[in-house]
């Protein structure tokens, strides 16, 4: 990972965290992980995944695990979906975001019930819908910004 790439991802994470303040309960950084998966850079994806896990789990109020599960679901969905779709196909991203929205609801509910926490399910459902709606534009913006700033050299 070269220096400019590192700076780009650092800026992405900082910007994403600031934007997440505006949308409580929504993960905007997942778009970066998706872009990194599409670039098929394992080393970059590994480090990004690690940092995002720490950020999201650190700011959360649930015990560690639900973000790990969720990002795990993203990786599984991505690898399974790549057999059927082009990785950068918008339909693929939309389907992926629907799956991730559903997983967000299920995993958060499951982890909360395992910890015997009462969480408002109607709000969780709304946030999951929002999450599914937010991923495609966030992915497009990230993808676009990355191409503009880094060129096509980053793609493998």
């Amino acid at each position, binding site marked *: 990972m070269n220096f400019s790439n590192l700076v780009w991802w650092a800026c992405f994470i900082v910007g994403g*965290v600031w934007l*997440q*303040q505006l949308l*409580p*309960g*929504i*993960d905007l950084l997942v778009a970066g992980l998706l872009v990194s998966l599409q670039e098929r850079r394992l080393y970059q994806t590994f480090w990004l995944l690690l940092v995002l896990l720490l*950020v*999201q*789990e*650190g*700011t*959360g*109020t*649930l*015990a560690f695990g*639900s*973000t790990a599960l*969720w990002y795990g679901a993203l990786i599984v969905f991505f690898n399974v979906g790549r057999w059927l779709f082009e990785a950068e196909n918008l339909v693929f991203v939309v389907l992926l975001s629907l799956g991730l929205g559903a997983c*967000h609801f299920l995993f*958060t509910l499951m982890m*909360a019930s395992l*910890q*015997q*926490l*009462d*969480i*408002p399910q109607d*709000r*969780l459902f709304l*946030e999951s819908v929002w*999450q599914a709606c937010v991923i495609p534009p966030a992915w497009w913006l990230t993808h676009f910004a990355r191409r503009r700033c880094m060129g096509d050299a980053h793609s493998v």
Partner: protein
Amino acid sequence: MLDRLAEHAGLEFVGAILKPGVWARDQVVSSWNNYLDLVGVREENEALREQVRTLSQQVQVASEERAELVRLRALLELEPPEGWRPLGARVVANRLGPQAALESAIISRGYYSGAGPGTPVLTHEGVVGRVYRAGPYTATVLLLTDPGSRIAVLSAANRTAGILVGTGPRGLLEMKYVPQNARIEVGELVLTSGLEGAFPKGVPVARVESVSQSDLSLFQTVYASPLADLEALEEVLLLERPPVQPGAQTLPLPSVNATQGVGPGTGQGSGQGGGASSGQGGHGGNGGHRAQQAPSNQPAPRAPRPQAQPQVTPQTVPQAAPQMVPQSAPAGQQPGQPPRQ
């Protein structure tokens, strides 16, 4: 005669020749001067506009700072209970990220700077909640509107005890386990009871909004609204726990380890749910059913996971007589802990 002719003809001719030129020159000069003036006016106008913009920004900043000053003064005027050390903190963010399932806020202090798990958080209006998870310099506060929040309270006028439980975002608080024959009135202030030492005694929490009785329940249904504006938190006050005096009469409080909190019903007094770090985190608990039980060390499963070992283990016996003012420290107790770096 020739002189007069010369004067009338030659001079007029020259004048006739020169005057248009002079007029034209004057016009050009005047236009040029006007143009230059206009340029100056425009530049001056731009400068004045910039000045107005700057002054407007300054006025805006000043009014914001003035509002902040008012809030901070109000916080400073709040007299902390004796022995509890007040620490100011800024609210950095509200619920942040996909894992923020509980009602929470992030503050600018962590366990290195006085915000250990379980630390009471309040504003000059009333109780906000307690520190739920803490990093070195940042902490998450569980707000009292969270359904897992449990605070042992007393009504101010009638001294009726109960457990104040959150009902969710922007919701009212439910005061549970208020017996059918207990007196409590709409509009009455609800204060922390100080039981279990999780909160100092006598801090305002909420105001009773409705009281109703049911034939099917042993308890009244009491709803209260929080006094603190939890939607617009900017600065908060943390109350650092007083140090425990050696030799003071103590009760064994439920111990909390790093992986499991203490569940509801393990508290003392009126069944306050939760231990020192989970007093308001006994999610879904039934703490009040065990009212008046002695505290036990039995860990219960329905509790959030605390981040670190809280600072309290033994706790001084709470005073029997209820009081409005903050609880005074036991004899010989030092006023507060030395500031931590």
